[in-house]
């Protein structure tokens, strides 16, 4: 007896293999499986739905054309895509060259203030319908990008320090310190808004 396997039940690696062989259904299944988390990360990271859509499209286009080579032995496809999205987001920021350089040990990183004016085009433009959620998003958008990365990946995507370290190309100690400082800055900003909203 043979059993039918739908694309949604297959592993990322198998779907990728089939997609490279020309199976459109496999590529579509792969896209639908990962587009949501990737888009949400890119949207919070960039503060712009249009930029997030561009990032998602470019990341998958890279897989399609073979310009991006995913190695299953080096981790999960979703983490690989997060890393690609992060690099694409960095490229779209002003002073990208300065920020794109990987920081290991990150002593200089600790000198940076976590809470900086966002470089997103319209950080305060409303993106979410829910007022409370929008307030958190705006607070998140005010964090410096390298703090924003770790906070988004940890708080909203439930990734471990090790996984975040792989995506952001930094060591675990740097992830820990960025997360601690980023969360502190976020909490401070939200706490400041709390009395105002309660009033």
């Amino acid at each position: 007896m043979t059993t039918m396997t739908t694309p949604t039940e297959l592993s990322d690696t198998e779907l990728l293999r089939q997609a490279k062989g020309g199976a459109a259904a496999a590529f579509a299944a792969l896209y639908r499986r990962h587009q949501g988390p990737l888009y949400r990360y890119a949207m919070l990271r960039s503060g712009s739905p249009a930029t997030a859509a561009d990032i998602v499209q470019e990341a998958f286009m890279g897989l399609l054309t073979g310009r991006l080579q995913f190695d299953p032995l080096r981790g999960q496809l979703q983490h690989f895509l997060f890393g690609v999205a992060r690099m694409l987001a960095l490229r779209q920021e002003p002073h990208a060259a300065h920020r794109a350089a990987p920081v290991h040990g990150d002593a200089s990183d600790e000198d940076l203030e976590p809470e900086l004016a966002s470089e997103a085009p319209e950080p305060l433009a409303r993106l979410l319908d829910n007022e409370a959620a929008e307030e958190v998003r705006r607070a998140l958008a005010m964090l410096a990008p390298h703090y924003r990365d770790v906070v988004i990946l940890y708080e909203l995507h439930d990734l471990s320090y090790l996984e975040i370290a792989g995506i952001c190309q930094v060591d675990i100690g740097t992830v820990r310190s960025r997360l601690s400082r980023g969360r502190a800055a976020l909490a401070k900003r939200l706490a400041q808004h709390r009395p105002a909203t309660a009033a």
Partner: protein
Amino acid sequence: MNDDMTNDSILAAPMATLRAEMEKQAAPTGVEDALMLAFAQAHPARRWYHTLGAGRWRIAGGLTAAALALLVLAIAPQPAVQMAPGQQSLAALEAGGEFIALDSLDRIEREPAPRMVETELPRTALAPLGVEITPENAGESVKAEMLVAANGDPLAVRLTSLN
């Protein structure tokens, strides 16, 4: 540590709210449309013969070559049969007025009541005996004497008016 716990208490509810709201967000459908269009252009539809592997192509090629070789052998002009010195065709034997056996000699000798009948045979029916056929004489008949058995089976024939 206390700072972290304080931050946890401050961030827990807002982050849960943000997470719930973000779950509703997805990439615009136009992104998928564009990607699938690009995919279709990168992977044009394959014909059935593109799906055959190299091994199957080798087998198919071998079979085709063998079939062609057989076909060539079948349709190639066959060399004329050369008569050995002293050997005569049946038609030549006829010229000498000899009978041409149509059955075994043993069967002819054992026939108790053979009889001779005169008949005419179409020239085309005599072609296996070496009688020449041309477009001009193909429709003609040849007179013959035929030795037949009591039951009517032909035993031997002698052509009497080949020309």
